[in-house]
């Protein structure tokens, strides 16, 4: 257990003593007052403040709340709440010792259960840390849970009984505890940040509503009926939310996890028993005023049904939004999530757009993404080798390389650690709209579809003209995944004087006839397996370097093997690996560092 966690739990224990004392005093003060109502805020507030015992309880409760917020800042919510729940046993012992009285049988049982829960909790705290500050669940899910709690509290309050009112108060206080945890763990923490945080207002609203519900339930049925459900809800809600929503750390070993669950259950049960026992005791002498319990309603009326329907509708809409987020996460990031750059800002590169209007593709404005290493900023006369990355189909170069493969943070980290030499990375688009008009980087039969010419002639020229590249074949590499891999290999086979190093990531080196208009000459030209025999001697003479890898379940693997054999017979250096996996993003993502290693080692 770490020091902040220990301090946090000690604060939670102190908070419990203050809060429970406050509750008892508030109950004693409020039970003799006229019915409180939100419609008569002034007179209700005046009557409460006029009752000294209630006022003292309120002030002590506020102090307790402050301690509780401190505990929340330092320790996970579920632990704070469990300690708070079990801490009532300590309060019983203190009161009994101070008054030299023996606790009642119910109090003794409740205190014993709660103490056992605290002991189990203490044992289960081995290796537990204060956890992380950021909640695990997204804000939308937390908001949905808070709305659901508020809705459930509203429905409970409508039943009009003291027990339901206590339950409503407990749910609202629980919701307030969740939002206050989010409030105090927000960064930066400060008066301005707290005042500007929406969680402050959610917390205040939840506690105010819970407070009113509790005071009304005291008046309707006495403390016995209301405190039990209130205590159970106010403890259970934050514990469950802490674990399920806020990512509170749980023990990894099964015995400790079991012990933690037992501890949660025992502390909550002990608090519930103690709450009822103490409320019963305090209610005994207070015979007046007479309390008339209104008959419980059979069920929610029309507004209740409407509320349920609205809640279900909101749940459905939120769920559909989550589904959209799930699908969008795949579309944008292929499931890998947004890239995060861990390199220090001074060593982070930048990405710029270069618009290339190539006549080969009817001057369509191609948005070429260009990564410039940090050294490009600091060394204004230095020239850099260049790597061209070609996308597969469908998709865009931005989605593929920046979002899915995280090229930018991988480059930054590799250069910062000295693994890679600083290189410019060029990511040109290879199609205008998805599959429509895509030729997989081949010069297609239709006018304006000369993607090979656009790449090898115009993009290379524009990049060399715009940026400080080393404009030689030995310092120019090309790679791609899937159809981009085919194109990269075709580029070095057909233009060995333009590129010195090439990589094919899951390349299929036999062209699909449909993509080049079923023209036999084009199918042959863009099938590297067909052209490599004639090109290999020249590639050898120019010192071309190749690296190909493919998943063992990829149907193109046999073609790649034959291609590599042809190159090796011509003494062209080629590294070839068949890796576990198929034709997918996981393979390309996992191999990116090794692919860039190859460029870094061979470009000069």
């Amino acid at each position, binding site marked *: 257990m770490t020091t902040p966690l220990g301090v946090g739990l000690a604060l939670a224990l102190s908070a419990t003593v203050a809060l429970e004392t406050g509750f008892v005093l508030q109950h004693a003060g409020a039970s003799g007052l006229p019915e409180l109502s939100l419609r008569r805020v002034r007179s209700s507030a005046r009557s409460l403040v006029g009752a000294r015992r209630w006022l003292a309880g309120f002030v002590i409760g506020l102090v307790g709340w402050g301690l509780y917020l401190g505990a929340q800042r330092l320790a996970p919510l579920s632990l704070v709440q469990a300690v708070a729940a079990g801490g009532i046993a300590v309060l019983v012992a203190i009161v009994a010792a101070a008054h030299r009285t023996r606790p009642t049988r119910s109090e003794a049982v409740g205190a014993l259960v709660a103490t056992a829960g605290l002991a189990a909790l203490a044992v289960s705290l081995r290796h537990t840390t204060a956890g992380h500050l950021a909640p695990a*669940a997204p804000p939308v899910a937390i908001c949905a849970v808070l709305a659901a709690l508020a809705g459930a509290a509203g429905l409970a309050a409508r039943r009009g009984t003291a027990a339901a009112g206590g339950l409503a108060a407990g749910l609202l206080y629980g919701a307030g505890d969740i939002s206050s945890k989010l409030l105090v763990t927000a960064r930066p923490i400060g008066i301005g940040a707290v005042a500007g945080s929406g969680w402050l207002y959610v917390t205040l609203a939840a506690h105010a509503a819970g407070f009113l519900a509790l005071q009304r339930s005291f008046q309707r049925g006495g403390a016995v009926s209301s405190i039990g459900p209130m205590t159970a809800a106010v403890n259970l809600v934050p514990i469950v939310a802490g*674990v399920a929503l806020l990512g509170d750390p749980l023990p990894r070993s099964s015995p400790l*996890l079991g012990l933690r669950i037992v501890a949660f259950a025992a502390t909550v049960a002990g608090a519930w028993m103690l709450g009822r026992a103490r409320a019963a005791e305090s209610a005994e002498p207070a015979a007046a005023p007479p309390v008339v319990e209104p008959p419980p309603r059979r069920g929610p009326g029309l507004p209740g049904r409407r509320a349920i329907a609205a809640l279900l509708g909101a749940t*459905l809409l939120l769920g*559909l939004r989550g589904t959209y*987020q799930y699908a969008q*996460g795949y579309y944008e990031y292929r*499931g890998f999530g947004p890239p995060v750059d861990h390199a220090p800002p001074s060593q982070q590169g930048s990405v710029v757009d270069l618009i290339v209007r190539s006549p080969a593709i009817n001057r369509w404005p191609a948005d070429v993404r260009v990564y410039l290493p940090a050294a490009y900023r600091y060394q204004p006369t230095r020239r850099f080798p260049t790597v061209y990355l070609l996308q597969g189909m469908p998709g865009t170069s931005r989605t593929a390389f920046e979002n899915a493969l995280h090229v930018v943070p991988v480059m930054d980290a590799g250069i910062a650690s000295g693994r890679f030499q600083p290189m410019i990375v060029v990511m040109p688009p290879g199609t205008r709209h998805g599959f429509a008009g895509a030729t997989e980087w081949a010069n297609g039969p239709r006018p304006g579809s000369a993607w090979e010419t656009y790449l090898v002639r115009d993009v290379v020229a524009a990049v060399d003209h715009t940026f400080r590249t080393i404009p030689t074949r030995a310092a120019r590499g090309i790679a791609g995944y899937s159809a981009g891999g085919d194109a990269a290999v075709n580029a070095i086979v057909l233009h060995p004087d333009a590129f010195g190093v090439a990589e094919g990531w899951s390349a299929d080196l036999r062209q699909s006839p449909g993509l080049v208009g079923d023209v036999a000459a084009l199918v042959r030209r863009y099938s590297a397996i067909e052209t490599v025999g004639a090109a290999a001697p020249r590639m050898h003479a120019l010192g071309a370097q190749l690296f190909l890898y493919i998943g063992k*379940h990829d149907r193109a693997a046999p073609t790649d093997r034959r291609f590599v054999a042809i190159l090796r017979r011509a003494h062209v250096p080629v590294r070839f690996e068949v890796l576990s996996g198929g034709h997918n993003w996981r393979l390309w*993502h996992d191999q990116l560092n090794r692919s860039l290693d190859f460029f870094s080692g061979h470009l000069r």
Partner: protein
Amino acid sequence: MIGRVAGRVAWLVGVVGIYLAGWGWLEYLRHVALGPTVADALPLYENARADRVSLAAVFVVWYVTALAALLPWRPRRPLVAGAIAMVLVLVGLGLVIGVQLTLVRASVLGEDFGAAMHTELPWIASLATAAAAGTLWHRRPPDVAVVVAHDTQERELDAGDTAPRDDADACETSAGADAPIHQIPV
């Protein structure tokens, strides 16, 4: 007739929407670290090896989803209806997971449907459907014959009697002859 068909189509669309929303709630709860986890619960994260979701979260999501989907359904034979719902959910989710696996693995749907049926999620969802059906229908009252007696002075029926099916003027029944009779004077 058109109204009935439109109603069924609307219900079907609603059920599809509810099950789609179920995936969304799994997405929200995918970081919940509670107990054992289920592989390929969110197959689109398989590339990033982040497809596992807590078993508790999976069960709760598909249980609540099934509750919402089955809520308007009042089947005459709950056992048969529950079994049909279980199979539909099993095959339907297997298919949806298969499609997602095909997308992620860039492979063939036929193979991935088989792979999907070997994952745990469709089976858990199917069990959750059974649990939801049990929750909704275990308290379903036995078929009740509601007898609308036009003249209670002339026709005295005791509970346990059967409705006289041949006397349409006197009585209207809504269930089988074996059901207990509740008499409503009008």
